[in-house]
């Protein structure tokens, strides 16, 4: 049987490019779990992961599996099982053997560079230890650190918050309302953190799924307040894609002069 790692390795090259939630590309990266709330003793979820225009249809590219990790309610790593990458989507399973809230995350921390060499504009992507690949003769070198986080939550039994604790790097979501306890007609509240501190003024976009069968995008544009808080009034039940991004000069990597931090999650809002 082809191992997950082998499949993932082939996808690694693509991953930096497709995980970018902003820039010239309007494509949206998302993970969609078969359930966000599960009951019973022997439960699994299947997750689709893709980069597409519409939500949540797979019509553009599969999301690489190599960066996807799952965390159990106690914070320990959980295996991604039955991983497979198709043309338009990737899919994998997570076996939920503990009660509580799981996190499934595709994180990326890398560098993006543009420079000129012999009058030609060049672009480069990679990690900090590969910066030497940029030729010494390059001019107008501009290096941007990119920290992206794309995560979803699944709860078996009662919701817990161990996996929701922030790590203190990049843009993160610190739920006030638990992400698996959202109901249409009740406002959901979330705090965005940048490097562990309230991300005041961060722009947040929320788009309901099912775009293909309506004319309007029904996008909600929100701005976090001074405490990094946004409050979302869910108009109806369904799956929602939420994205936040911010640019600043707080790059941690060598030679990087700016930083782009992004956060994406998929949230399920239940019928009342």
């Amino acid at each position: 049987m082809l191992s997950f790692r082998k499949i993932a390795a082939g996808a690694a090259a693509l991953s930096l490019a497709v995980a970018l939630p902003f820039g010239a590309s309007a494509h949206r990266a998302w993970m969609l779990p078969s359930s966000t709330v599960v009951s019973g003793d022997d439960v699994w979820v299947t997750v689709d992961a893709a980069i597409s225009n519409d939500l949540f249809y797979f019509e553009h590219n599969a999301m690489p599996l190599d960066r996807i990790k799952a965390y159990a309610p106690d914070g320990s790593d959980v295996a991604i099982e039955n991983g497979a990458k198709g043309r338009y989507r990737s899919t994998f399973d997570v076996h939920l053997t503990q009660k509580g809230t799981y996190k499934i995350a595709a994180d990326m921390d890398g560098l993006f560079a543009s420079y000129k060499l012999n009058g030609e504009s060049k672009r480069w992507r990679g990690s900090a230890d590969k910066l030497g690949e940029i030729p010494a003769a390059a001019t107008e070198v501009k290096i941007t650190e990119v920290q992206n986080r794309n995560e979803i939550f699944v709860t078996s039994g009662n919701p817990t918050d161990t996996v929701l604790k922030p790590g203190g790097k990049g843009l993160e979501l610190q739920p006030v309302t638990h992400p698996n306890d959202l109901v249409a007609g009740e406002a959901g509240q979330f705090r965005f953190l940048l490097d562990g501190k309230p991300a005041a003024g961060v722009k947040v976009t929320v788009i309901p799924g099912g775009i293909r069968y309506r004319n309007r995008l029904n996008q909600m544009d929100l701005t976090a307040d001074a405490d990094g808080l946004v409050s979302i009034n869910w108009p109806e039940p369904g799956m929602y894609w939420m994205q936040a991004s911010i640019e600043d000069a707080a790059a941690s990597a060598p030679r990087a002069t700016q930083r782009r931090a992004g956060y994406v999650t998929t949230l399920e809002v239940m019928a009342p």
Partner: protein
Amino acid sequence: MRSFFPLVLTGIAVTPAAAQAADMQVTVNIPRLNVAEYHKPYVAIWVEGASLAKPTNLAVWYDVNLKKNEGAKWLRDMRQWWRKTGRTLNMPVDGISGATRAPGQHVLRFAEGKAPLGKPPAGSYELVVEAAREVGGRELLRIPFQWPPKSAQSLKAQGQSELGAIGLTLKP
């Protein structure tokens, strides 16, 4: 807020006051549906209100007899029940869990001071009945009421799809 059970256990149920305990009768009609694939619905019946720390479950009907408790997999389809209390319980729960019921009228009686109703403090409540059916739909009905009842009352709600008429009869 105290839950019902400690009050029951402290012996209030056997005091003279309990002789005049109010009671509650819940009638649930499960409609006979003409569909290609019919499964008996999962049904949860509970009482909620601001005077209660958490809702009081009266009955949860599901596939209790499947091997390895596999019927529990679909309990979350009763979404509001699951959110309010189901997810904190280790199903099945004695005195609350029961097998799914066939279409028809089902009558349940609950006496004040006895499990599972216990002794609710005076206040405003809602009886909630939620039904979810495999490859079918979901419906949730509410009947507001005051407890303890001052007079005999008969209250009703009418379902449209997964539930038929729901009745709540209160006796002081």
